[in-house]
């Protein structure tokens, strides 16, 4: 007989924290596109775990605009995110990422909260959220805390979460734009096929610019270190500058300095090191409509 973990399906957050068992490892079931694979592959200690299905909790599905931020509920799926106009307007890098995220039929179920909680260094949403200085709201029983996204990951597939911690929403600051400036953003990755790519390497860029003048830029890379990395030194090089080939070359050197890619079943360290630099050149060329390759 196949053994299954305990299962709860609360309808509200209040109900969830009332029912949550204290003596079991809690797995929140969101879209299930990763977690059900772990269950099938016997990677879950079924006897001592409880799966808490979030699919009936309507209060986790929303995209709202506040004075300073856009707030996104953790149960928002990638297809909803891809079509959302607030997201398109304020965070083009998110929209760019959604277009290449997994497959469309998985995007229909997979959620942004699940992608964060899974904590894979190749999780596609993560580098993008790093470039946008995203904050994450986490609830556990009566406590609520807010953390910067780059503080919650401690290693591949590892977060600093305590048992029962639930991601409830993402808080992403809107950018104030001076006249003539616009917000631009992009996400690129390399993998084995065009669709359904689990990244061998990925890059996200978000910037405020006017033609080739950069007011502010953030660059983050995925799958080339134990966690996603935001490369602050590139921001220091490029902020408040007119873009040129020398600056772009210096930026590539910064990427090579901070990454620590590995050999694994998906790719090799050497390949990742080369390809992530190319991804940066390709992305910056596309964003600023100039060929920075040569």
């Amino acid at each position: 007989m196949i053994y299954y973990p305990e299962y709860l399906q609360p309808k509200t957050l209040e109900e969830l924290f009332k029912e949550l068992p204290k003596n079991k490892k809690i797995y929140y079931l969101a879209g299930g596109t990763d977690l059900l694979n772990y269950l099938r592959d016997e990677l879950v200690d079924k006897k001592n775990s409880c799966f808490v299905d979030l699919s009936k909790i309507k209060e986790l599905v929303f995209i709202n605009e506040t004075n300073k931020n856009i707030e996104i509920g953790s149960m928002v799926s990638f297809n909803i995110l891809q079509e959302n106009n607030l997201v398109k307007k304020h965070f083009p890098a998110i929209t760019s990422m959604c277009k290449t995220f997994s497959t469309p039929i998985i995007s229909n179920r997979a959620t942004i909260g699940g992608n964060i909680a899974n904590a894979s260094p190749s999780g596609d949403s993560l580098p993008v959220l790093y470039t946008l200085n995203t904050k994450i709201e986490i609830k556990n029983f009566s406590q609520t805390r807010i953390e910067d996204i780059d503080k919650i990951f401690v290693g591949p597939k590892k977060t600093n979460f305590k048992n029962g911690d639930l991601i409830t929403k993402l808080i992403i600051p809107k950018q104030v734009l001076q006249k003539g400036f616009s917000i631009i953003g992009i996400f690129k990755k390399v993998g084995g096929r065009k669709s359904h790519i689990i990244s061998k390497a990925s890059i996200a860029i978000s910037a405020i610019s006017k033609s080739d003048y950069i007011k502010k830029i953030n660059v983050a890379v995925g799958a080339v270190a134990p966690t996603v990395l935001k490369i602050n030194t590139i921001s220091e090089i490029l902020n408040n500058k007119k873009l040129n080939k020398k600056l772009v070359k210096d930026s590539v050197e910064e990427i090579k300095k901070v990454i620590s890619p590995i050999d694994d079943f998906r790719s090799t360290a050497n390949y990742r090191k080369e390809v992530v630099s190319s991804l940066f050149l390709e992305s910056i060329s596309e964003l600023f409509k100039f060929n920075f390759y040569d």
Partner: protein
Amino acid sequence: MKKKITFYLNNEKVVVKCHPLKTLLKVLREDLNHTEVKNGCEQGECGACTVIIEDEDKKSFATNSCLVAIGQVEGKKIVTIKGLNKEKELHPIQKSFIDEGAVQCGFCTPGLILVTKSLLDNNPNPTDEEIKYAISGNLCRCTGYIKIFAAIKKAIKLVKKIRNSKKI
């Protein structure tokens, strides 16, 4: 911990008694004998097990049934390939796939027809790029996709023709 779960399968109400974490794919095949839903990879890679799910708020989408827990389906409507034809009359998408020879071994066909149905329900005039994107989660190892693509182009015309004739 078995639970009674009620949902609608091809417009008929069904009740199953099983663990809510059993996948929709397994429930359809093992408990309900709906073997038209194919088990390819069982990990969301191939799309052979695609079904259409309609939410309580009437939004419908295609997805991999191997990655859906049956507990999450409670109260929802599920459409498999068996739900498309009206008795002996095939759905225009099914006809187009036959006409264009888009079926070889047939294992990917239910999934591909269902993603096409979902695409055309939401977007009756997809561009070539939108078609390619829509089917990108469904693998076919026989046809090389050319005939599948042609079948979808044909289906768009057929579906439109039928819709227009119904308007009159």
